[in-house]
């Protein structure tokens, strides 16, 4: 845990210094909402449709973060430096997944209110607590699967392609569950803060399965 915190602190410092990842993710999300706003030619959307737009947009923005997750390690010898240290390799999985989770949370702090502004009619305040719970579970899935996929892709020449090609199908069940859980919240008729338990359970189970899988295989991904 201590090593993971050391790695996480370094990653956050690098991002604050370079601003290479989170601003790009936010920009992509904002542009996508604007495209939907004008492309759908409707003042407002709601329910399952709104959930689909939100989840798809966040997913594509997240892929930018996934693709850049290990770039500094690859290009500046971070992998070798880490492997030379007498530390547990799974610390890197934990740190990278936590870092991506924080990037996603930062994205959503801007993107979700923007989504409300551009595409929702009623105030986003009533369903917000439920939406935060759903997005937290979705972010966990993206963070774990994204870290796994990024660790595979970084060793390939076509890493920018491999990330989405492997990552998007793996994330599909989690995203369907996220959209289904968020849909009733965005109908604005449902009791606030009560996303469907079934889909939350599916998301939580998916998170758990992939967290265990990632823990089991991550060491091998760092081998030569």
């Amino acid at each position, binding site marked *: 845990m201590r*090593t993971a915190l*050391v790695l996480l602190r*370094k990653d956050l*410092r690098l991002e604050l210094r370079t601003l290479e990842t989170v601003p790009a993710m936010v920009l992509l999300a904002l542009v996508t909402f604007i495209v939907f706003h004008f492309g759908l030619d409707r003042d407002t959307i709601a329910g399952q449709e709104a959930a689909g737009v939100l989840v798809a947009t966040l997913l594509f923005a997240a892929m930018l973060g996934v693709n850049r997750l290990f770039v500094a390690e690859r290009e*500046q010898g*971070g992998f070798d430096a880490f*492997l*030379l240290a007498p530390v547990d390799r799974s610390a890197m999985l934990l740190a990278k997944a936590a870092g991506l989770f924080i990037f996603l949370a930062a994205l959503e702090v801007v993107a979700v209110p923007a989504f409300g502004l551009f595409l929702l009619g009623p105030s986003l305040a009533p369903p917000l607590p439920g939406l935060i719970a759903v997005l937290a579970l979705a972010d966990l899935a993206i963070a774990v699967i994204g870290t796994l996929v990024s660790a595979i892709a970084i060793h390939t020449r076509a890493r920018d392609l491999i990330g989405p090609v492997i990552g998007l199908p793996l994330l599909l069940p989690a995203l369907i569950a996220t959209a289904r859980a968020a849909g009733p919240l965005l109908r604005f008729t449902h009791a606030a803060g009560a996303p469907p338990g079934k889909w939350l359970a599916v998301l939580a189970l998916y998170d758990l399965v992939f967290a265990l899988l990632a823990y089991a295989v991550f060491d091998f991904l760092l081998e030569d």
Partner: protein
Amino acid sequence: MDTPAVELRGLARYFGERTALRDVSLVLPAGASVAVLGRNGAGKSTLLRILAALLRPHAGEVRVFGEPLPRRAFAVRARLGLLAHEPLLYSELTGRENLRYHAALHRVAERRVDEVLEAVAMERRADDPVRLLSRGMVQRLAVCRAVLHDPPLLLLDEARANLDPAASALVEPLIGRPAGRTRVLTSHDPRAALAEADLVLALRDGRVAFAGAPEGLHDDALRELYA
């Protein structure tokens, strides 16, 4: 009998169809230095990466301080330092931030960072991002990184590259003979490497062309090695 610092027996490593190392054997006593010589692509860097447990051997036996690699790599990592072609530093972080990061990974006290920075006269530029430093300064920081945890075994791949004579003299107490460490070193200047070594391992196309004391490697053999 003391356990050798490095023991190689019949080591082989391939990259696809290409043979990087084949049937390489070496016994390096603790405290001694070996110069690994050979042309570009002879297998020198591959050998160092295997000793650092960053690459797996495909055949043969590798032991560092008696521990077989890669199986017992975890037990060896704290006892070796690698100075490779790449400095293994993040360009957007400062030298001090980089070294503090490595100190944390190796569980070394932060005051050691100040010690090594002072040793290579980098205290005044230690808070500049690495990307703003000259190559020589980056190499001095890389030396700091490699010796931060005071490893008894140093793997030095062109350690003095980019260093002018004054900077080379600064790093000497850390990576030279006076440091008293076991060293496996390569250099683009074979005569400089020979002057620093107790043993020579000359490689040609991944195979051992010569192994023994530096005095045994005659000028003709040296010229032929680099021809």
